[in-house]
């Protein structure tokens, strides 16, 4: 066999499975979104074109889920980036006795997300002590976090930031450590302060990496389904319900699979702009 033939043969099994497991389901999703199938209504599988999408425009719950999703995307990502950058800098200083911390910080993103959700749910449950207990020691009366809309959103943000900041930190730290030495030495000779070094040397040089991480986190920010599921189930009254959680409720709990599919199609469309930017960037890094 020629080289090319061997390579093609090595590629084939993986590609077949990939096509079966990703191309087919996604096509099915789009197909479903154009129909009116609801598993609890017999004979409801009819072609309705863009009917589901029109229905969505009038669906208050959809618009709510859109705002919640935007909240997650913006707030969670910004917090992760800021804290992650700060931590990456702190590790970059290579202070004595902090090496082992790096390993420890890997843990939040390695443990099952539902365990993250469970732990934080318990911490935010007043009757179990936790956050409210610590607040009370400084005289603050903590709210019933998970049962009020704004505090529930805050609680989920805390859990999401806890879970994903380590990833941001890891990537930014790797970026920092792969920066060339010369600019730092030049800054040192010029007598730059730490703040100046960060602002004029580190940030500009790190911009591509920061961008990549930002896009990655934006795209992934709605992947907190397990957190929402365990902590609030989308409540109270859909206050923490993102688009894909709404799709889960609609499709799996209420079995309106066509409507759920159309919700997900909208979600994919929304993420498309970011996905395209990321894909273009990612493919540029290597030939």
């Amino acid at each position, binding site marked *: 066999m020629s080289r090319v033939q061997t390579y093609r043969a090595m590629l084939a099994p993986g590609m077949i499975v990939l096509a079966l497991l*990703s191309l087919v389901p996604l096509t099915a999703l789009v197909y479903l979104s154009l129909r009116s199938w609801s598993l609890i209504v017999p004979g409801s599988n009819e072609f309705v074109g863009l009917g589901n999408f029109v229905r969505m425009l009038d669906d208050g719950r959809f618009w709510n889920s859109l705002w919640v999703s935007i909240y997650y995307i913006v707030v969670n990502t910004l917090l992760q980036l800021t804290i992650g950058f700060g931590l990456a800098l702190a590790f970059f200083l290579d202070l004595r006795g902090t090496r082992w911390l790096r390993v*420890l910080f890997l843990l939040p993103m390695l443990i*099952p997300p539902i365990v993250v959700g469970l732990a934080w749910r*318990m911490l935010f449950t007043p009757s179990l002590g936790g956050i409210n207990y610590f607040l009370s020691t400084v005289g603050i009366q903590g709210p019933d976090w998970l049962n009020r809309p704004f505090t529930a959103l805050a609680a989920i943000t805390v859990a999401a930031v806890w879970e994903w900041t380590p990833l941001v930190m*890891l*990537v930014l730290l790797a970026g920092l450590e*792969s920066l060339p030495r010369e600019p730092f030495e030049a800054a040192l000779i010029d007598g730059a302060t730490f703040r100046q070094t960060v602002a004029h040397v580190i940030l500009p040089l790190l911009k591509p990496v920061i961008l*990549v991480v930002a896009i990655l986190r934006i795209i992934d920010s709605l992947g907190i389904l397990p957190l929402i599921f365990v902590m609030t189930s989308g409540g109270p009254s859909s206050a923490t319900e993102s688009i894909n959680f709404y799709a889960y409720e609609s499709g799996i709990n209420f079995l309106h699979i066509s409507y759920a599919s159309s919700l997900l199609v909208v979600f994919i469309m929304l993420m498309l702009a970011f996905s395209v930017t990321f894909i273009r960037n990612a493919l540029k*890094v290597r030939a």
Partner: protein
Amino acid sequence: MRPKPVVRIAGYVLLALAFVGFMVPFLWLLQLSLKTQLDAFAYPPRFIFTPTLQNFVSLWSESEFAKFFLNSLIVSTMTTLVALLLGVPAAYALVRLGSRTGRAILVWILFTRMLPAMVFVIPFFIAYSRFQMIDTLAGLVIANLALDLPVVIWLMRSFFLDLEQSLEEAAFIDGATPFQAFARVSLPLALPGLVATGIFVFILSWNEFIFALVLTRHEAVTAPIAIVNFMKYAGTEWGQLSAGALVVVAPAVLFAIFANRYLAKGLVGGSVKG
């Protein structure tokens, strides 16, 4: 950099704060798992109490947790093996072929990697219902494969790109077939990357939630879902719940301790150049 003491102190403070913030959930789970029901609900929360291992014991003996833990083990191991088996040769071939179709495939892989699992759940749910694959371990493995095969291909691609082709060329000159060059030269060279990818996929499938939630009922339930069910049906058994949660966290912790170098490489791989 030799920053001023002020900056160094700020660094220590930040790391210390982060350390505390990071440890709190773990410590909370730990202390809840070691408390009796009475102690767990005591308010103000008791920090000095007689620890008990009863929660861990009843977890293994009274519930079906052992079975669910085993399910997780089986599904994760099988997913990892199949994903590697299919993905590693494919990644290598993609790198060596480098054609236009190759690029299209890469774009597709990146695209699917970015889709949240929910997007696949509904079609899988319908297909599995039709073909009686709900609540099967094999079904779960296949579903996880949908998520993890792209990851394997993407990660191994970056590791194979790092390899020096000269050694392969030498093998060709010595009369090796392309596959032999792959198996005897490239693969051993890419072993660290392979290990990193394998560990990463294992953890991904171990932690996987939404497929396991939707596609299982009683027999194929994995450990994370067992915890969720437990939470729903025995909601106030916080002790056992915490104990179960800690047990489910165990593989990730073990891997982090013993393979953290590989893990960091796998997690960062593809995000940063070099």
